């Protein structure tokens, strides 16, 4: 199945300049599996969005079809075929 992932522009230097990618993944797909797939190609990007325990960094948000995954099942949130996943920094900052 194909999933479109929107990546934060602030991290484009970790993703070869790309701000969106289309991933072909075997179903079923979770957000964690999707991030694992991204990590294989872009390990520095992965360190920016997840710490070494695998947890999503506090001020990074992930949306699946517009729903923030912390309100769903976190990294185990299912990603349906054709979904759009957005990874974006939160409004934190000074």
């Amino acid at each position, binding site marked *: 199945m194909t999933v479109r992932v929107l990546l934060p522009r602030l991290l484009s230097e970790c993703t070869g300049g790309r701000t969106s990618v289309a991933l072909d993944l075997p179903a079923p797909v979770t957000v964690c599996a999707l991030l694992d797939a991204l990590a294989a190609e872009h390990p520095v990007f992965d360190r920016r969005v997840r710490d*070494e*325990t695998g947890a999503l960094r506090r001020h990074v948000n992930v949306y699946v079809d517009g729903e923030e995954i912390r309100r769903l099942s976190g990294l185990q949130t299912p990603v349906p075929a054709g979904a759009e996943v957005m990874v974006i920094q939160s409004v934190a900052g000074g």
Partner: protein
Amino acid sequence: MTTTLLAIGTRKGLWLATSEDRRSWSLSQPHFLMTEVPSIGIDTRGGRTRLMVGVRSEHFGPTVAHSDDLGATWTEPDHGSIRFPADTGAAVERIWQLQPDSVDRPGVVWAGCEPISVWRSDDGGEHFELCRGLWDHPHRSEWGAGYGGPAAHTVVPGPDATVHVAMSTGGVYRTRDGGASWEPRNSGIATPFMPGPPPEFGQCVHKIARDAVVPTRLYAQNHHGVYRSEDDGDSWTSIAEGLPSDFGFVMLAHPHSAGTIWVVPLVADGERIPPGGQLAMHRSDDAGASWRRLDDGLPAQEFNAVLRDAAAVDAGDPVGVYVGTRGGEVYASADEGETFTQVAGHLPDVLCVRAAVLP
């Protein structure tokens, strides 16, 4: 002609300044803009210069990057320089200290991190290994968090296999076996912020430094209290007399001469500004027995604090002294603190400065 490099880590990026005379400075554009840079190491051992920085994004976490071309390019390992082993269940929050070891141990670099942990690199700061002896220390559950977070903020390698670490809050710990085992070393250091007699550990040490000539002599600036140890940290005596305040964050030791140290006093823990709103360093040339105020060239009015790593010395002759404020002003002295000139102004809060005469 020698060039001196001054690296300035701020709340929102890194600036590099260079000078031929340490009075007139050329300032770079920002590196790592919008990420804090709380730690810098400049490693000039072996005739090459490696810059290491601990950077941290509020959004995207911490990492260590290094540059072997004075900041023209930066490198970080794909999987990171500092990563807690999986069994710890911990994640690095901030790299507080990057400290190259002595010339006798080329390639060895120490890191102090939050959560409280010490790390050793044997490849010049590219990959670090957790010091398990401190991580598994039975005191860990009783260590606290200073305002900036629970951190091993200072690592001071010494002769043989001795290393001293300062943590907030926990105090000074020492290993004599290269990090396998650690003992608290806080005897004589007061804890005015808590009731009762001073404990074996739990002190809020702000900075420690080792005398370059007498390696068993250490100096400490504490959360109220300025101290010297003549026995490798076994016991401490106050050297605060003669200072306008015993509060502050900075402790610098001369890289060549015995007994010369610098501090930057602040009024008190409840009033973290220079006394009288006037920035001054104070230098002792007799290991803290007496102090002299140094403020020539520093601003007449300054209500910003100087953080624990926002002051540094280089290894020049005479030694250069550097200080940066939370107001983003940076000053340099080419004459051991007698006179200062401004290097930069209106930067973000200065978190750390490090300087080196380039080989």
